[in-house]
């Protein structure tokens, strides 16, 4: 079975997603949780195996028995094992978390459908991450996109339909660009397997000057930037996160945009190669640097002005994706390490924060920031969760967020990009402003509201795991060796 793991971690959630509509509601939830638990266990195993491999090697799996480039292959190396573990872990926690939440937010006949779509989305994101074939990446991108649209549109308010629709339009635009990129790439290289394309580039370096290749890269970059809501292409994101059902928000915010960022890393480093970034189209690198830096500053700045907690967090995500992309623009081991660490760090923090928003929606029926008032007394554990996650977002030392900033700053100094340091600091300050506002309400507001109990344990426990991760990842460098090795392998 160990050899079949790469296929199984995707196929098992897919299988469960197909069985869920045929099952009863209670059994459906059990199936979801079980499938994701199995997938998570498989991903952890893959991470361990990938980390034990010697430099430059990866776990390869030929689907259908056809070795690449004739067939499609799955390739697991340290980088995507890291992302896969994050994805399946968060998905499993959200699956545990969402049973009570969906019962309140999704109309009962649609719940099993919601579970099924949720599983498909998780499997789609994991499929994007694990694949070593650019067209297969697109297929799973489609699965992940369509499911995301509807997971958003199932929000309780009418605006959710509009939010889902605007994501549909922009997301389809992005997907089309990505498809155009794939088409151009195939036209110039005659193959779709990532490793094979890279080999073609190594054999024929003059391809880097081809306008087809440059167009392909530009399309990939713009398409993926749209999907990951990189400033200024973030327009779809705040509405989407704000209107979606709570469980969708938690999962989307913690994982979805990061997978697109991962895809950009994969395309830029594995497919096109480091040399292309350096010599082929350096303007894209500079553009990404500018976009990432503006995102890092503008995201939290916009977040400060929001009154809806989920919308606030969405704008903060606009900023945080900048950290994930910054490493690509900085283009050295430390910068990449920082960004890779952020895959986990931000997933934990943002997941926890959206869990708080979900708890608020569950108990108070609203996600207005003002509803946080007195949370510290009503629900001390949830308030602690908010505190820890917010500290991690700010980058307080001893939380996970600090490590990201530390490595990014080191990378920036190493790359001679001194201007990035003030950007990082300004972002921390702006983040501190809105985090402070939230915590002020939660802990120090005058207590006049009625005392209500905390959310049920089935929701509290998974969210506390995410909160604990913010602390544990800040003190015990679980992901660090993998991230560092992955960064060095890419360069």
């Amino acid at each position, binding site marked *: 079975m160990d050899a*079949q793991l790469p296929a199984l971690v995707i196929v098992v959630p897919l299988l469960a997603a*197909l069985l869920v509509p045929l099952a009863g509601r209670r059994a459906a939830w059990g199936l979801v949780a079980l499938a994701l638990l199995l997938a998570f266990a498989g991903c952890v195993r893959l991470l361990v195996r990938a980390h034990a491999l010697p430099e430059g090697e990866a776990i390869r799996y030929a*689907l*259908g*028995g056809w070795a690449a480039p004739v067939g499609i292959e799955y390739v697991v190396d340290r980088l995507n094992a890291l992302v896969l573990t994050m994805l399946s872990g968060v998905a499993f926690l959200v699956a545990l978390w969402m049973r009570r939440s969906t019962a309140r937010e999704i109309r009962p006949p649609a719940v099993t459908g919601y579970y099924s779509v949720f599983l498909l989305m998780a499997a789609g994101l994991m499929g994007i991450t694990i694949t070593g074939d650019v067209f297969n990446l697109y297929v799973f991108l489609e699965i992940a996109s369509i499911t995301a649209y509807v997971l958003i549109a199932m929000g309780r308010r009418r605006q959710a339909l509009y939010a889902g629709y605007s994501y549909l339009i922009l997301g389809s635009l992005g997907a089309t660009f990505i498809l155009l990129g794939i088409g151009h790439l195939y036209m110039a290289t005659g193959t779709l397997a990532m490793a094979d394309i890279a080999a073609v580039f190594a054999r024929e370096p003059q391809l880097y000057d081809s306008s087809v290749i440059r167009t392909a890269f530009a399309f990939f970059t713009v398409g993926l930037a749209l999907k990951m809501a990189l400033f200024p292409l973030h327009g779809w994101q705040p509405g989407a996160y704000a209107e979606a059902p709570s469980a969708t928000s938690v999962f989307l915010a913690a994982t979805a945009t990061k997978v697109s960022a991962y895809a950009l890393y994969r395309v830029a480093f594995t497919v096109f190669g480091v040399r292309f970034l350096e010599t082929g189209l350096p303007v894209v690198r500079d553009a990404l640097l500018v976009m990432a830096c503006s995102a890092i500053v503008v995201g939290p700045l916009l977040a400060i002005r929001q009154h809806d907690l989920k919308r606030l967090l969405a704008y903060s995500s606009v900023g945080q994706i900048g950290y994930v992309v910054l490493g690509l623009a900085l283009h050295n081991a430390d910068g990449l390490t920082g960004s890779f660490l952020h895959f986990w760090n931000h997933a934990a923090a943002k997941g926890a924060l959206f869990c708080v928003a979900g708890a608020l929606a569950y108990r108070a029926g609203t996600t207005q920031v003002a509803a946080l008032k007195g949370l510290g007394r009503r629900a001390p554990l949830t308030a602690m969760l908010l505190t820890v996650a917010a500290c991690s977002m700010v980058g307080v030392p001893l939380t996970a967020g600090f490590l990201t900033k530390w490595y990014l700053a080191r990378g920036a100094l190493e790359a001679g990009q001194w201007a990035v340091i003030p950007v990082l600091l300004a972002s921390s300050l702006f983040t501190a402003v809105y985090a402070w506002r939230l915590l002020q309400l939660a802990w120090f507001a005058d207590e006049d509201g009625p005392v209500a109990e905390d959310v049920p344990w089935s929701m509290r426990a998974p969210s506390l795991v995410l909160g604990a991760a913010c602390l544990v990842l800040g003190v015990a460098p679980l992901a660090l060796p993998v991230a560092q090795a992955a960064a060095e392998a890419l360069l």
Partner: protein
Amino acid sequence: MRSTDSLIVRYIARRSVPFIQLYALYVLGHGEDGPGGGFQGGVIFASSFVLLGLANGWGYGRRAAPARLLDPLLPLGCLIYLGIGLAALLAGGAFLEYGALAGSDDPEVRRHWHHYGLIGIEVGVMVTVSAAMATLFFEMARPARVQARVDRVGEEADRA
């Protein structure tokens, strides 16, 4: 959608259904040797119900392809596909390695099983595609009157 007023159109639509479906099956089977396959076959198969719906009214078409039939068929096609893939995996090959279904190393036998596997997945594709296309049509075209009733039933179900 209301039915057309023309009796001839309605009659011909009804009578052409079996021929369309037969053609769809032909397209499915023909995929090995020429243009065609499960996807196209599925679309054509679904179009027979679409034609019924367009010509004889939404309700008529829906009765021919009711939701309680289509809803389980939707995942079923994919399950066939996935099931074949998993069966190959359990038989010792890679996921979707149809040859492994043979359970022997004889290249001739393996090639036969490759063939069966290919047909199997095409059938799966056809089931899902035809169910999906028909579902899409009937959900989108549902008349306002029926929609109102469904809403009411849904709300009652919510309350229960």
